[in-house]
């Protein structure tokens, strides 16, 4: 690993100036993606700005219609939070299924969102639930945030501070994971929101995306049967050592049906 400067600011303004001091500085959350990348020399920042020393970036707030999760809140904390288990259990279950226990003890929601790994679980939840990404400069709608493979709408030096999830009527997430990496080969998040049914797919392509064909079919009738016979195009889908594009296309339909069945079985209607 190449060396770097390490700073652990106690306030957001200090973190912003540390990041602004060098174009090669990187923000550090739980380090579950960044530290392995440093070891492989896929990343060689001049400085790491550890955001975990900033108290206001951590923690979970519940309002009447939303759950707001601070950027450095760990997956383990989201998975075990009583109010999230009660109001948005699909999100708690998603967080509890990321990686393994040690990854969940360290990994942070802000880190996942800023990294935008094409196989990460959280981006599917953000996109399907119509979440907003709150940052040091303002707010981004999830629909406009995930722009490509490891690419987001974040400007250089912009820091994710929190994720705001509107509480849906119903939601469920299903994934088919790689047994080795435990990343999603494909993951499908289905949400019944105030604005209608929203479905987001992760793992299948270079970036999380909304599946309009599934959304309109479920909009007519919210049942797994509505998706029978749908065929998904393999255009743009990933093909790698884990799965080819036709298998991933097939998984989208299977997982969407499973998610709808789960959503209907839990009967959680807010």
């Amino acid at each position, binding site marked *: *690993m*190449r*060396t*770097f*400067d*390490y700073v*652990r600011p106690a306030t957001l303004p200090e973190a912003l100036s540390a990041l602004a001091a060098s174009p090669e500085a990187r923000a*550090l959350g739980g*380090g*579950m993606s960044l*530290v*392995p990348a*440093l*070891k492989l020399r896929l990343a060689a920042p001049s400085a*790491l700005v*550890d955001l*975990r020393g900033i108290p206001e970036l951590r923690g979970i707030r519940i309002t009447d219609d939303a759950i707001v999760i601070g950027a450095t809140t760990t997956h*383990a904390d989201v998975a075990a939070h009583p109010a999230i288990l009660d109001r948005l259990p699909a999100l708690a279950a998603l967080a509890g299924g990321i*990686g*393994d*226990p*040690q*990854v969940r*003890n*360290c990994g942070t929601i802000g880190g996942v969102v800023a990294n935008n790994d094409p196989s990460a679980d959280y981006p599917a939840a953000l996109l399907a639930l119509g979440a907003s990404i709150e940052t040091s400069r303002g707010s981004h709608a999830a629909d406009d945030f995930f722009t490509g493979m490891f690419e987001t709408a974040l400007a250089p030096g912009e820091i994710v501070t929190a994720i705001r999830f509107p509480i849906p009527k119903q939601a469920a997430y299903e994934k088919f994971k790689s047994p*080795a*990496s*435990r990343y999603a080969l494909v993951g499908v998040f289905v949400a019944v929101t105030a604005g209608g049914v929203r479905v987001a797919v992760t793992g299948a392509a270079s970036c999380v995306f909304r599946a309009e064909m599934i959304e309109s079919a479920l909009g007519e009738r919210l049942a797994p049967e509505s998706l029978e016979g749908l065929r998904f195009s393999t255009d743009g889908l990933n093909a790698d050592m884990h799965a080819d594009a036709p298998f991933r296309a097939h998984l989208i339909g299977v997982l969407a049906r499973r998610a709808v069945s789960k959503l209907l079985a839990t009967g959680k209607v807010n």
Partner: protein
Amino acid sequence: MQIRFQLNGKPVTVDVPPHELLSELLRDRLGLTGTHVGCDTSQCGACVVHVDGRSVKSCTTLAAALEGATVTSIEGLADGAALHPMQQAFHEKHGLQCGFCTPGMIMSSVEFAKNNPDPTPEAVRHWLEGNFCRCTGYQNIVSSVQAGAAAMHAQRKGA
């Protein structure tokens, strides 16, 4: 840069380069070689230690981030010559073959057992998703964790 933290109940002050990993600090400079490095790619779990009571992969933790933290490695579990109940359970149930994965298995299991006094085999297997045994001796490891969890809570009640 200088950091101060608690290691196995004792205060430690040490100079670390910013890129030093906790696994490197423990093994190479503090002589605590009970923490094993299996894959060094965050997958195998042999290097698991506790930071502030939670299990983490020391091969993916920057030592520089530990200022003020409380760290427990496998060497910190036993009480003098008396093994920790989870260590004793691995010993009695033969929860190891070559032993390489054992420190990580035990550190991971101790966190799990704190909240799970009577776990099912399925719950143990799910929790140990991040700990690989390349001897594939999982059957006895699961039995060990169940016995260790029971012993930890029996000891707590008796205390």
